[in-house]
């Protein structure tokens, strides 16, 4: 066998050598990473993905994991912490007064308010009440979240480095403001592999909010694999007739002929791989196989008709309309039951620069009941203890009004210095409110938590040391948390 390989290597012609070099020397390393362990020949002599469950790069976890999967309810656009979780009565008292420079401390502004000559403070129009055993302040806009206050850990002291949507979301999802790095889900797929070989380890569900229906779009690179093997990219599920595009066989093609076609194709691709050694060829073979298996597993997953009425009632009436956040939450639970490792939801429309009171009311209604239902549904199924649920956006919103402040109307601009997220589930202290902001809701005064800290914590809960899950690319070992990140031990059990 060794002889054959050597012979083959000698056969490499000049063109193949050059094209291989163009792929990069990294391909050699990749081939060894994936080539031997990741693929094995089945009886028919076809290379298929190893069916052996966990097939990630990590042989074993760095430490025992608290959770086996993550459901990330990403609230895209930057939900206003001041209307939802961070209760600041001072802002109501000093409504209309200018934000003091002693508080702003030269914070850079977006182009949308940089031209404003004053920054009138504005408090929340929504009322707050204390909920749960620890008396967490939660706004009346989130009645169902308030009901599960004892199940969630509210972190009021998140801060980020970016001030505009795309860099901020990219930062949250990939650890870098510049595009090009792998998303969290891709890192996990790379590190831990899949628990269900019939579904992608990293699944993505999108929904548009009613608060600002024409809000910022999201780029598919947010769930991209970056420089990792393209097997690890997130697979978006749509709400339409074909949940995953191009999955169905065309009319007249049955499953057997599809199988024969794939076998033949695989043979050709394998030959091609042996000639050129490009790991993306293997990736392609594996993806064809995955798609073949998904032809049966996806329809089963998406068939929510059989969910009983009381489950729809839990998630709220919107859950019966495919494509809504509520319906996606229900799907997320079904994916969790099937062993999908990282389930990423995005709910757009939180970017309320103007007309915030009305818009946030609708937007909060979109997500409130379904988010709470997801947590409690996981709990009654015994899945919450090994699932981490995260709810939060990419940054917060300013304590002053964008545009003219009127008696009943105002807007808020982007604010990176403090914002609120919540976590629930395995290994996170339930009922905890962590971190504090000043009376103006502008700066953090206690227990700041950086985006990298959040990412380090997320990996920690999955049994991964964030400093040790790395990938060498262009001469550097990259990791999700770049060169920073501290596990937020205080919020963990």
């Amino acid at each position, binding site marked *: 066998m060794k002889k054959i390989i050597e012979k083959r290597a000698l056969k490499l012609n000049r063109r193949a050598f050059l094209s291989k070099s163009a792929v990069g020397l990294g391909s050699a390393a990749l081939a060894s990473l994936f080539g031997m362990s990741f693929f094995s020949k089945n009886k028919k002599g076809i290379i298929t993905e190893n069916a052996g469950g966990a097939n990630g790069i990590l042989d074993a976890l760095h430490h025992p994991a608290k959770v086996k999967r993550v459901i990330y309810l990403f609230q895209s656009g930057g939900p206003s912490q001041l209307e939802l979780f961070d209760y600041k009565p001072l802002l109501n008292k000093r409504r209309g007064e200018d934000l003091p420079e002693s508080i702003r401390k030269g914070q850079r502004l977006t182009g949308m308010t940089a031209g404003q000559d004053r920054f009138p403070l504005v408090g929340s129009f929504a009322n707050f009440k204390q909920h749960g055993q620890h008396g967490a302040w939660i706004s009346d806009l989130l009645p169902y979240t308030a009901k599960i206050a004892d199940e969630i850990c509210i972190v009021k002291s998140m801060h980020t480095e970016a001030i505009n949507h795309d860099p901020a979301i990219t930062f949250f999802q990939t650890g870098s403001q510049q595009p090009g790095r792998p998303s969290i889900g891709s890192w996990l797929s790379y590190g831990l592999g899949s628990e269900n070989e019939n579904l992608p380890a990293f699944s993505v569900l999108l929904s548009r909010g009613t608060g600002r229906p024409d809000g910022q779009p999201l780029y598919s690179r947010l769930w991209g694999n970056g420089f990792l093997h393209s097997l690890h990219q997130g697979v978006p599920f749509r709400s339409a007739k074909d949940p995953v595009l191009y999955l169905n066989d065309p009319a007249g093609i049955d499953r057997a002929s599809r199988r024969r076609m794939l076998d033949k194709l695989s043979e050709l691709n394998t030959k091609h791989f042996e000639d050129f050694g490009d790991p993306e060829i293997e990736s392609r073979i594996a993806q064809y196989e995955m798609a073949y298996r998904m032809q049966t597993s996806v329809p089963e997953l998406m068939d929510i008709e059989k969910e009983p009425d009381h489950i729809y009632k839990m998630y709220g009436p919107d859950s019966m309309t495919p494509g809504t956040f509520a319906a996606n939450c229900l799907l997320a639970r079904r994916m969790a039951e099937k062993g999908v490792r990282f389930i990423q939801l995005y709910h757009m429309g939180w970017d309320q620069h103007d007309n915030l009171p009305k818009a946030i009311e609708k937007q909060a209604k979109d997500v409130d009941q379904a988010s709470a239902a997801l947590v409690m549904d996981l709990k*009654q*199924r015994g899945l919450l203890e090994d699932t981490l649920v995260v709810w939060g956006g990419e940054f917060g919103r300013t304590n002053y009004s964008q545009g003219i402040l009127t008696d009943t109307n105002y807007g808020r601009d982007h604010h990176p210095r403090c914002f609120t997220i919540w976590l629930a589930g395995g290994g996170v202290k339930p009922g905890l409110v962590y971190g504090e902001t000043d009376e103006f809701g502008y700066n953090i005064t206690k227990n700041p938590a950086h985006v990298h800290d959040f990412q380090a914590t997320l990996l920690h809960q999955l049994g991964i040391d964030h400093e040790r899950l790395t990938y060498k690319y262009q001469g550097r070992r990259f990791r999700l948390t770049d060169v920073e990140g501290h596990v937020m031990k205080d919020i963990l059990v």
Partner: protein
Amino acid sequence: MFLAINIARFHPLFVHLPIGVLIFAALLEFLKWKQKTNAFDATIPVALGFGLLSALFAGASGWLLSTEGGYDEQALWQHKWSGIGLMVLSALLYFAKVSKRSAFQKAYLPLFSLVLLLLGITGHFGGNLTHGSDYLFSTNQDTAPTVVDLEKAAVFPTMIEPILKAKCMSCHNPGKAKGDLVMTTPQALLVGGKTGSLFDFESPAKSELLRRVHLPLTDKKHMPPKGKIQLTEEEISLLLWWIENRACTDCLVETMKNRASVESILAKYQVSTETIPTLDVPVIAATSLVELKAKGLKVNRLSAESNLLIVNLSNQKQIDPSAVKALKKVGENVVELNLANASFSDIFPSLLSAMPHLQKLQVQRTEINAATLKPLGKMEYLSSLNVYGTNLTDEAVEILEALPALKKLYCWDTKMTATGIAALQKTKPTLDINYGLSEDLFGDSKLNPPTLATTARIFTDSMVIKFNTNVKNARFFYTLDGTEPDTTSLLAKDSFYLKKSAILKVIAVAKSWGKSPVTTANFLQARINVKSAKLAKAPHSSYAGKGAKSLIDLENGTLAFSAGNWIGYQGENLTTTLRLEAVDRVEKVFVSSLAAPNSWIFFPKQIKVWTSMDGKQYDLKATQNYSPPQATDQAAIQYFDLNFPPTMAKFVKVKVFSLLKNPIWHPAPGEACWIFVDEILLQ
């Protein structure tokens, strides 16, 4: 004196020279004897000479250091005199080596043994002096003490004393007592040191103990001194809390005040209930794990270097007998088994019997019964069990009761009864039983109000009204007279014919949801046919619709105002003249208009209506003013109706007055605003 003290401080450094050098000399002597070589003959005397010299240095600096005081007299005496003895002996040793006299040569080896012995003794006494006499034999420096019942834990011995022991007592013990302060007993702590009491109970934060801690690190009064291990934030918080409670040395946690500030720190003393007991299990070789995976099994180590395994067989339809066999072989190592929704429940019992160390077992949504769970009886570590969605009955209660370590049970959606659960809870009061959610969490969830399939609100003869809702098998109940509908109102499966103007109110009703909120819509029947319409001025080119025809085409616009049914003017009023098919009796005019404040579109300020028989002579019939828009207004579509005494007419002229400028509260006040009209109806 200044210089002298500095040399004295080098004592702890110098002492290591004689130790090292003399041991080196001993090593050379040993090699010489062992290898029978003369190679070291020249070196040994040099080593012994240097050893002597450094011993003298160490002794001198030590003497100077001892004059600084602050040491335990007895320990100092022991160290001082053994050191002097060592100096004398090493001098003798050197001379014995270099001497030619046979008497001295004979004494050489015993002397060397004596020197080495004394070296050890002196070093040990020195160590006692700096680190305390119990330093060598005390253990567990790092592991914080833990308690089973936090509330009943004694604060001083559990939380405070360990801090003092680790960070203070090495210098403040009866042996060393720096600054005349001894911290080893509660009494001595209360006495304090040279600068007085350690505590200020009036303002605890200003206590000497904490003041020293908070001094800058460079301050020589800072404690612990620079270079020593410093107190952590948590330790300082604990000390402050303790002083706030008057440095109580016999209090329990529950009797202390101001708990809030240290709650999270205290929690760390609580013994974790989830610690994995160290199990004595066979070692799992990497190769055997690979073999298991090759059989298609999802088997993973708990973590790297652990021999405990997690097995996930969830959602699997079948399992290979050889895989079962292989699994059973490593059964003792398995601590977590996931069989959720697996179809091979017949082999569960044999699988479970092979896994006595299970801590977590998931068998939800499988075909299990009480008999399947029999093997659980032997599982002394099982702490989490998930049986939700199974047909398990109260028969299982007995098995569950017998599980000694069980902490969590998920049994929602089983055949277990409330009585059975209650009995289980009674025998195991600390067991966390999840038996489904309380009804008041999501019980008030309501259907969305139904929607209407069409946006049209105007018709001539009749129109089909179709209802939509996202719930299956819903029924719709409606009224046409403005009264609130209920389940005794008119019933429609999903549509009905409307034949006259009406205020439609409709609800959807579905099984297990009940009634939805009400949807209301106004429908207008246009009785008078309009032949043509003319606009006094062309509308804005972006919102010209189909021209004047748009106003009489019986098609309504929607909030998506650029769609083409709307006629829009910016900064201008709208005037239109309608020509009827024939002379008719007119008594009412409806104007359908749009407001979208964010898009600078507002409802009319005023509408005027004229009628005419000949198209030349118009009589003003009605004028209606409308209240100015508010900042809270949302985008909406509304009919404005004008009533006047019935008049025969062939032509009707309508003038819709715009606000012309954005109101003062608007983000762009004073800018030219829009008026939008999509339909004008006559009755």
